[in-house]
């Protein structure tokens, strides 16, 4: 069972979100269509049309599916930081350049590692679009704010997906990556608001001292992060 969404924002409209949660609870999935496929603006549920031919399927009931979910996120991050590094924003400090260059190198390795580990099971390259989401690569604030979305989102995604991995070796590999994402998140947050509590701010660490954990797949429907991917993604839970 799937529902089809024509735009990411639909998920946050009460009627659609309820429907999504109801379907998801029954073991179904959701299909995100890019804007160009927008057929209806209805917020009271979706259709049962088949996904478009270029849709990517993430089957989160298996380890390769979960690792492909991570691969999708790493593709997105690597693409972002690669573009950042092609022309750094004006006035960038040496420290900022070092941090952003290091993170780019880490994310590229994460992406290529997951591709190698998945082998023939890997999903295709995803299409990303930062311009449509109004990322201004010439703006320090835009770049660092977007980086914060990626790093916090990556941490929350890995934290939420750990329980889906069945092979403990894969769980360990995900653990090796997520703490590096958290190190990134703290550094980016401190560049944005130096010397404050933001590196592990109360907006991401709850009163029990726990970081965020977002259920796998859900992140791709989050308007803050999923908006950058234009490839339709079908999630099977």
């Amino acid at each position, binding site marked *: 069972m799937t529902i089809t969404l024509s735009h990411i924002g639909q998920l946050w409209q009460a009627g659609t979100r309820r429907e999504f949660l109801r379907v998801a609870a029954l073991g179904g999935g959701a299909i995100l269509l890019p804007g160009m496929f927008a057929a209806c603006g209805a917020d009271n549920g979706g259709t049962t049309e088949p996904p478009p031919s270029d849709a990517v399927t993430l089957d989160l009931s298996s380890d390769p599916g979960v690792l492909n979910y991570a691969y999708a996120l790493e593709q997105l991050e690597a693409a972002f930081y690669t573009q950042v590094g092609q022309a750094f924003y004006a006035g960038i400090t040496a420290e900022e350049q070092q941090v952003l260059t290091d993170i780019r190198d*880490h994310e590229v390795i994460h992406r290529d590692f997951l591709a190698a580990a998945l082998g023939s099971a890997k999903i295709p390259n995803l299409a990303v679009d930062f311009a449509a989401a109004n990322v201004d690569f010439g703006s320090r604030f835009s770049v660092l704010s977007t980086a914060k979305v990626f790093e916090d989102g990556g941490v929350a995604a890995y*934290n939420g997906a750990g*329980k889906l991995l069945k*092979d403990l070796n894969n769980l360990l*590999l995900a653990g090796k990556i997520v703490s590096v994402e958290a*190190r990134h998140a*703290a550094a980016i947050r401190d560049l944005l608001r130096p010397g404050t509590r933001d*590196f592990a701010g109360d907006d991401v660490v709850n009163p*029990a001292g726990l970081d965020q954990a977002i259920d796998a797949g859900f992140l791709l429907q989050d308007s803050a992060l999923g908006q950058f991917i234009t490839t339709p993604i079908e999630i099977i839970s």
Partner: protein
Amino acid sequence: MEQNHPILEAIEPGAQARVVSRREAIRSGAGASSVLVAGLAMTSVPFALAALARDGYAQAAAPSIVDVLNFALTLEYLEDEFYRTGLAGAVAATLSPAELTAIQQISKHETAHVQFLTAVIPSLGGTPAAKPTFDFTAGGAFSDVFSNRVTFLAVAQTFEDTGVRAYKGQAGNVASNDAVLTAALQIHSVEARHASQVRRLRGQKGWITANDRGDLPPQAQATYDGEENTVQGAVDVASLGAAAAATEAFDEPLTMEQVLAIAGPFISQSIVRSAH
């Protein structure tokens, strides 16, 4: 798992259902248990926390979830008392505003972790371990730890970087309980945020390059040994990018014994393990 987990439920609604419905025995257990068995040659870890680990081996190849959480609780006791003592002592006045702010936030989280684990352990039918007596000078090696900001922040860095590796090494041992695993991962990434900030305040990168301890004294080397690994699963990631980045991009786990060997010098009085 058919016990009630009210604490976990309060923190993560829905956790109970997942705990109960968890599919079992489909995980390949080779990873964590073989690593831990390999670490069994713990000859003389100098305090009784070792008994906690040893007990786990006696029962099976891997420690119980409660044993793992008591191991984590002991590390959180260490961090919590360290920061609270520092903030109440002479060293606090020597910290820069940014350093003080960071330590206050980190201290808040470590206190929260102690409270969280102290509440979770009974919900799993266990008894929280007692807090050991700590010696943050490590037998005199860091005699000015609570008066010299350089020493204080250096010890903080080793605690945070060790904490990240310690939680990572135990993830597989709590993986049979979704709610506990997720909570452990959520603490793990908070420790990594802390580590990044303390490292950067000390003029280091937020991430670990190879097994480089930076400007820390030789006693800290064990916290970084093994971080130079580049073989991840079946892939040598050194072939995917620059050598430094290939090691920075992955943090490595520590076994319970390795963590105990690192923490041992800071623990002056053994704890007696409670029956559960």
